Structures are given as structure tokens and as C-alpha cells.
């Protein structure tokens, strides 16, 4: 790996600023291993829950002009089996692993954290984007700065690993939410999760294409939303940011870094450019650095 790509993240040295984002190819150790070999700097597991989840019934995916709609429904083998995959991964690779967890309550998040404490994961990421659970004011949890604060705070008080809070883009004021995370002790934030939800209809059968009707939006078309929210978050918190959403090329990655991200997540890009996307983007970042006469990734400027 080219040294110019090296970055530091919460005290760890990464070979590349690219992150395999949660839920993309992250279900099994060999899949994670392959992404790691494809030069991702750090990898994230599928969000793990206390009990295994089969996810929503199919169709769970629909494509449209500019993006992908998905309603996977957080299918995962459960925290115990999920962490076994992480151990197996670590047998073959020393790349850092972010363990993503998803709970429906503070208690669930806490229990999950206990599991992760005893695992070989390097970071813990809280998937806070649950659109179906609401706070006492009717706000989705992900949009409630108080609920977000409470979850992060509780996890932080017991976690042995650095804690990353993953945020939803579907909020009115990302700044408040980001500040809540920082105040609660989060070590980093990751944004964005999927946009929407959206829906598509099969006009011949007069039926929603997704069996779950609604799905979250990802892919190139969410990039402007991700960029905007990373920009706003960067303005108001000092903890590092993992910028995710619609990154397909090295130029996109540099755009994310310049905007305020310390690391750049790759998700749906894998569909558009294959699992080799990490190598491709890393090469393209190097090109952008050369063209614009930047020493290395760490010396990229930040947008004011």
C-alpha cells in the first residue's frame, strides 16, 4: 500500500482511509476478509442484534436511476455468531474491525456492548437509525437528541472499545444530534445511514416492489446529502467523522475528506464497481493527490 494513503484513526494506523460500511458484504468472516484484502483500511460488520434475524421477505432490493432501495430488515446471525465471524476473521487478518450493533432499547444496546467487550473487535458502532422506534415526543430515536445521548452515554460507560455513533440523515438538525453524541462521550461519529425511506411500484402488477413496501435509499444519489451532513457535523464537533454515502470514485472520496470526514465509507459502490472498488478508489485518490500536488491524504485541506 502506498504510504500516502495512511491515516490515523483514534490512535490506530490505517493503510487507507476507506471503510467497508456496515451491512454491505459484512455477514461472514470470509467476506470481510476479502474486503480487507481489497485494501479497505478498516471493515465494519453487518449490524448485529441480540437474537438472529431473518430480515424482511423479498424482494428486499430495487434499483432506480441514481440509487438502490433496500429493505434487508437487519438480517444477521445474532451477536454471538456474528462475533464468532469476527474471531475467525482475526485468525487471518490484523485489520481493525468495527462491530456494528443494533438495539431496540438502551438495555439491548448495553447487553450487546457486553458481548462486544469480550470479542476481538476493535471498535463498536451503534446503529442508531431505527426508523420504527419513537421517543415520547413522537420523534424517531435517530432524530431525538436526548435518546441518542442516552444510548451513547450508556454504552460508553461500559464499553471497553472506542464507540462510534452512526447517524441517520433523516433528521431536521444534524448538528444537535452530533453534539449530543460528542457530549455523551462518543469517540467518533459515522454518517450517513440510508436516506428516506422510499418506495417503488410495479405498474403491471400494481404492487410495491419491496415486500416491506418501503426501503432505505443508498448509492450515488445520496452523496449530496451525505456531504452536506458531514459538513455540518464537522463544523460543530471535534471527534473524528466517518463519511458514508454515495461514494463511488476517488474524487468522491476526496470530496468527502475535504468536507470534513476522517475516513470514507464504501457501501453501495460495491454494486456499481465490484469488490475491487477499494483498490480502484485508493488508486484514484493517489491520482487526485498527485494532480493537485498534495503530499498525502492527511495533508488534504478542509473546506472552510
Amino acid at each position: 500500500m502506498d504510504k500516502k494513503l495512511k491515516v490515523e484513526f483514534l490512535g490506530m494506523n490505517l493503510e487507507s482511509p476507506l471503510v467497508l460500511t456496515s451491512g454491505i458484504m459484512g455477514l461472514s468472516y470470509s467476506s470481510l476478509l476479502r474486503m480487507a484484502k481489497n485494501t479497505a483500511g478498516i471493515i465494519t460488520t453487518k449490524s448485529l442484534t441480540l437474537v438472529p434475524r431473518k430480515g424482511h421477505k423479498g424482494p428486499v432490493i430495487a434499483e432506480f436511476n441514481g440509487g438502490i432501495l433496500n429493505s434487508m430488515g437487519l438480517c444477521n446471525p445474532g451477536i454471538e455468531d456474528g462475533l464468532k465471524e469476527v474471531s475467525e476473521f482475526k485468525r487471518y487478518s490484523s485489520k481493525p474491525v468495527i462491530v456494528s450493533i443494533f438495539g431496540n432499547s438502551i438495555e439491548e444496546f448495553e447487553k450487546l456492548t457486553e458481548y462486544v467487550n469480550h470479542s476481538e473487535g476493535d471498535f463498536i458502532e451503534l446503529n442508531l437509525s431505527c426508523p420504527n422506534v419513537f421517543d415520547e415526543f413522537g420523534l424517531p430515536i435517530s432524530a431525538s437528541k436526548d435518546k441518542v445521548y442516552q444510548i451513547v452515554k450508556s454504552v460508553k460507560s461500559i464499553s471497553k472499545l472506542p464507540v462510534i455513533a452512526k447517524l441517520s440523515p433523516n433528521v431536521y438538525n444534524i448538528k444537535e444530534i452530533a453534539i449530543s453524541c460528542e457530549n455523551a462521550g462518543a469517540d467518533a461519529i459515522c454518517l450517513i445511514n440510508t436516506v428516506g425511506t422510499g418506495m417503488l411500484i410495479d405498474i403491471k402488477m400494481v404492487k410495491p416492489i419491496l415486500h416491506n413496501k418501503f426501503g432505505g435509499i443508498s448509492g450515488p444519489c445520496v452523496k449530496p446529502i451525505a456531504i452536506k451532513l458531514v459538513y455540518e457535523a464537522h463544523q460543530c464537533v471535534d471527534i473524528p467523522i466517518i463519511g458514508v454515502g454515495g461514494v463511488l470514485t476517488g474524487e468522491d472520496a476526496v470530496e468527502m475528506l475535504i468536507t470534513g470526514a476522517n475516513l470514507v465509507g464504501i457501501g453501495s459502490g460495491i454494486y456499481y464497481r465490484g469488490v475491487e472498488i477499494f483498490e480502484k478508489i485508493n488508486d484514484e485518490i493517489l491520482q487526485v493527490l498527485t494532480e493537485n500536488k498534495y503530499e498525502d491524504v492527511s495533508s488534504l485541506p478542509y473546506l472552510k
Partner: protein
Amino acid sequence: MDRRITLEIKNIRKESKSVKTFTFSYNLNAKPGQFIMLTDFECGEKPFSISDCTDNEFSITVKKIGEFTTRLFQLKKGDVLSFRGPYGSSFSLSDKVLLIGGGYAVPPLLFLSKMLKKYNADITIINGAKTKEDILFIENFKRITDKVFFTTDDGSLGNKGTVMSIVSPLLQNEKFDMIYASGPEPMLKKIVDMCDTIPCEVLIERYMKCAIGICGQCVIDSLGIIICKEGPVLDKEVVKRLSEFGVYKRNASGKRVYF
């Protein structure tokens, strides 16, 4: 962008008590081994191999096994289904070939055998199942080549025993350029183990959700091969290195289920 196509069923053919072939008028432009993701928009979307494909129509051959396939069996000609694809890798074509099919996994081999015949290959087919009722495409395969062997566990058709009972002696007497195999994984495992020197392509089924290579559901250990994209047809050299092959698969939650 991948398009979703919604089509009327043009024809339904009963292959056996629990197997039907559905035909659609559409130029799918698929290769043997590839599959489509099919839904009736009631509940579920499932992968099915293409069992035939010409310039103006294609077919899938379905075994009634659970909720989704049971609903398919209630459909009539003219009813509408929706699919996306074709997805996945395909079988390569060779000159002197042996096709080995087991149980309800033979549909892709029917399509393959037709392509091989066009290609003027020298074709031998072994088609095995538990009992006569489960043997598919008897007449179709006979039209493809004289060298068709059937096996049943109970001896109700052809040789009594598994396909292996034919394969082993055959390989001692004849030299094939390529073996193609589709069937239950333990059978495939035996074939792969046996083919030390003979090229061999194997169709592997795994639980599928996205079918476009992003969800990770179908990925197979230890190489992280993405079956929906890089499979379902894999070269035996790759298959041999898969620690998961023949040992376990993953269910809808990603949990391992051992064979």
C-alpha cells in the same frame, strides 16, 4: 441499471408430480447456469435457474417445496410474474463432456445440454434421483444424446444407486474434456473430490437476497466467493479451496447450517 420485468406466463408444463416448467415470451439473453430472481409480489423473491432460453422465450423449472413454490403451482397460464436478471456465472462449452445431475438441480443442465448440442459436443448425461418420479427431463435428455444414464436410489428407473455408481466406472473408461455437475452438495463434493485431473464445473446453490453482490448473504467461506455474482457456476479448482463447500451453508439470518 438492472430492469425488473413483469410478464405473463405463456405456458406451464407439468414435469412430475411436484415439478412444473413455466415459460415466458421474452428475449432474456441468458447463458446456461445463470438464474433469475422471481417474485409474485405476494411474499418472497427466489432464485431459479434458467432451464431453457431461446431468442424469444425462456423457461424455469420449479420443484414445489415450500410457501413460495406452492403459490407458483397455483398459477395459471396468463397469470403474471415479475423477475430480474439473468444473474451469475455460466458453464463454459467443451467438446467431449459429461453432465451429472442430481434430483431437482438438473434444470440448468437441460439448458446447458441444448447449448452443447448446438455446439456439436459429444455429450454424456447422468441423471439421478431418489426414485423414478423425481427424475426430470427423461425424454428431453434422450433427444439430446443416446448416452443418457439414469440412476435411482430404489432402482425404479435405470441403475439402482447414486449417480456415483455410474460416474466412477465411466471415468475409468472414457476421457472427458469437462464434467458439469448440479445436484445436492454432498454429491457435488464427491464429484469434485474425484475429479483430480479432469476439468469440472459445479453449480452451487446458496441462500440469496440481493442477487447483485452487496448484501453478503450468499458469500461462501473460506474464499469469500460471491455466489450470486461469481457463481453459481464455479470451477472445481476454486470449489476445492472452499472450506464451506459440502460442510455447511447459511440460512436467511446468515447462521451456519451444517449438511
